[in-house]
């Protein structure tokens, strides 16, 4: 077996100033090209898990290896290769950035210090904007977009990064039904065509895409189930109703 792309060993994460870990003793191993859904009730620790994986939150115990390297040591370098669409975002009206630049900024970490974005960077940005139907909004200030449009911009940003790993936290939460289908299709295609390792947090079991075979159930900061989709979904429905 190849080495996993993401590996968590006995990981706990405690928020600063808190005593109780938000996720605890997590053991999780994800192979190259896997597509995994993460489900669980509010406060289960889903967001915490994603941000522990990309190192935005420092873990308190155990070890997190991404692409074979420890996130605690190589955080920025690893994050430049991980696309992340956060659950919460808010850009007020005066935010001094245009949509195109928000998407371009996703690549800044890869571009590196003391270098300017190249033509290729800009081409990737334009492609991502077009994929999400945002080309017309490209020169608008991000703060003047609707919540759903902003969520699409963040998706475009994550894709324009051409990441090795994609972390999506409730990426449909602000989207209407038509947009949901389109975005789900887009995510599926990227997974299929590029073998992109993808983790997606969802609260709506119906939204788990058909090509997703592995589901992880979190509750109370612990992994309760991890395995074949049908089995985990069944366990979840039994425990929490539908």
């Amino acid at each position, binding site marked *: 077996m190849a080495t996993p792309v993401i590996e968590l060993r006995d990981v706990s994460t405690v928020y600063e100033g808190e005593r109780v870990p938000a996720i605890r003793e997590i053991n999780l191993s994800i192979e190259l090209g896997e597509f995994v859904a993460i489900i669980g009730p509010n406060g289960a620790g889903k967001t915490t898990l994603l941000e522990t994986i990309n190192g935005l939150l420092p873990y308190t115990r155990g070890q997190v290896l991404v692409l074979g390297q420890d996130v605690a040591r190589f955080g920025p370098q690893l994050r430049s290769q991980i696309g992340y669409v956060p659950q919460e975002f808010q850009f007020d009206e005066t*935010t001094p*950035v*245009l949509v195109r*630049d928000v998407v371009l*900024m*996703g690549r800044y970490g890869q571009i590196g210090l*003391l270098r300017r974005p190249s033509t290729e960077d800009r081409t990737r940005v334009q492609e991502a904007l077009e994929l999400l139907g945002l080309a017309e909004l490209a020169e608008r200030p991000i703060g003047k977009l609707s919540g759903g449009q902003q969520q699409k911009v963040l998706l475009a940003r994550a894709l324009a990064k051409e990441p090795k790993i994609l972390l999506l936290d409730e990426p449909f939460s602000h989207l209407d039904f038509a947009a949901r289908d389109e975005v789900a299709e887009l995510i599926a295609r990227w997974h299929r065509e590029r073998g992109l390792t993808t983790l997606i947090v969802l609260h709506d079991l119906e939204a788990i895409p058909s090509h997703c075979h592995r589901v992880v159930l979190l509750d109370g900061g612990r992994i309760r189930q991890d395995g074949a989709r049908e089995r985990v979904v069944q366990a979840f429905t039994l425990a929490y109703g539908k």
Partner: protein
Amino acid sequence: MYGLPWSLIVTLVGGAALTGAACGLLGTFVVRLRLSSLGFTMSHAAFAGAALGLALGIEPLTLALIASVLTAAVLGPVAERAKLPADVITGVLFPLTMALGLIFLYLAPGTAMSSSALGLLWGSLLAMTHTDFLWLMGLTGAIVLTIGLFFKEFQALLFDRKLAEESGIPTRPFYYLILFLTGATIALALRLVGGLLVFVLLQSPAATAFQFLYDLKKIFFWAALLGVSYAGVGIALSFAFDLPIGSAIVLVSTVGFGLAVWRSPKRRR
């Protein structure tokens, strides 16, 4: 300005312009990163430091610089984690720094009401020396260079710190670089504008630019230009009506900001 030698006029006007430009550029960060209360506290710490310098007979600007940078180093982590509400920092530390500053002034040899002592409070054009001018030139150059070299990183930081981290930029060094430069700018601006009011130049030009623009490059440019204009018009007013220079600059800044809010497309519904 009649009767003043040309070299002095160049120093004064040039120094004021550089102060305005440096404050406008850094003000862009202060406004957007919500560092107002930190900057406010730093400026009064700088005043206290300068007053201590007067009392001890040490170059006031040196101590002002140490005091404001030290404040940045201590309060930076507090502000960064938003653990203490900003108004608490200001509410506690503002009186403290003012009290210290006034005690030092009181202890300063000679009369406490000497012009150099009062200059620390509300600024003084004539206190600007050729050396100050050179320092201001170096500092403004360093600020422009820093912003130019790391424009990408600062743009990401000013957009959203978490997303900047997400893209792989380590934001902390850049955040502290800004705090450090702000501390230095405050200390150098103290001579011209005075400890009570120096903060206005860090706030007003940038806040005005943010009312109109969404493109960060333009915001930097206009904040610097407005800083220069506010300082320039302030000097003219100060000479024309014999007003304290700091107060004159504040009056001009307030009028400018007021006009901006009134005309701002961002506030129009």
